[in-house]
């Protein structure tokens, strides 16, 4: 459920100008509306793209969040690679669908 909540927050940020405005104006109040773990809250507060990728956030959602926080394309790709180095392989989600974990 938790990965679902992280992705829902980022999905809504990507598509809804009202949620985006709240992200900029009342960030902590917005975060309270989603059931997020401390690790997830930390990753979002820090804009830690690498950790969010490792948690399993779909890249089609994550790349727009990366753009929202001002990352260029190369920075985005680099952040995910660094995330895997720091936190290990992707833990859940679409990139873990193969039985042997390869993707």
């Amino acid at each position, binding site marked *: 459920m938790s990965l*679902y909540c992280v*992705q*829902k927050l980022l*999905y809504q940020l*990507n*598509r809804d100008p009202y949620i985006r405005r709240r992200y900029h104006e009342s960030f902590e109040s917005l975060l309270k509306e989603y059931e997020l773990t401390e690790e997830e809250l930390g990753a979002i507060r820090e804009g830690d793209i690498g950790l969010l*990728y490792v948690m399993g956030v*779909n*890249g*089609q*959602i*994550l*790349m*727009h969040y990366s*753009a929202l926080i001002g990352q260029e*394309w190369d920075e*985005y*790709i680099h952040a*995910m*690679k660094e995330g*895997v180095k720091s936190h290990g392989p992707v833990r859940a989600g*679409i*990139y873990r*669908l*193969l*039985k042997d974990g*390869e*993707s």
Partner: protein
Amino acid sequence: MSLVFAGACSHAPGITGRSERADPKLREEFYRNLDRIRERLEAARPDALIVVAAEHFANFFMDNMPAYCMGMADEYEGPIEDEEWLAIKRRKIPGNPDLSRRIICDVMQKIDLAYAEEWKFDHGIMVPLHFLTPRYDLPVIPVNINCQGPPLSPLHRAYEFGRTLRVACDAQPERIALLGTGGMSHWPCTPDSGAINESWDSTFLDHFINNRKDDLISYTDEEVLREGGQGAFEIRTFVTVAGATEGSTGELLFYAPIPVYAVGCYAATMAVE
């Protein structure tokens, strides 16, 4: 009238958003062939264009994910992404709700198709329109096949959806064009972005252009994921076009891996008989 045109092309956001980063010669050749699709589309004098796309969490999320959905709005808006990021200016795109409704009702005789009266186009539709209807004056009817959030509709259902869509189009008085847009092998927005399995793409394209139904629907999701990455789930859009043009073959105008665009870029048309 009936279906008067069918084609397929890539939609990766890099095609417009990072256009300058590709080999200019290759990029121009690709753009030229997209222009050939545009010429063929215009020559068919369509009244509306159905775009079968695989959107990327612009309108649909895992809280309520339709396997198949068709737009039924008066107008649409896109791109939902940052205009500078995609290098396409945000605008309104005309729809045709009456035609949408008639097609949806006909398709629903065989396929449980969802509909949406509100739809924001992402790069999956905006990039093709940028090249194929650059004046944005042709009414568009968007279709989404869920290719992002498994469980996904099986390929044989995507083919059947195409067949049913064809019957529905042929029952309308308007001249209708159909475009499928999705990627073959690619690992978009991941650390493997830029990887392309060219031989897998080539085999798939050969099945598509020759409209070999049994081969097209034989791929399992696990095989697709292993050989083509999660981006290749979008082959459902091709399979739908093949179903809509069952019995016909096509012409591959262009294919080349362009890693900085994260996909093998292609342009194709199918005969409509």
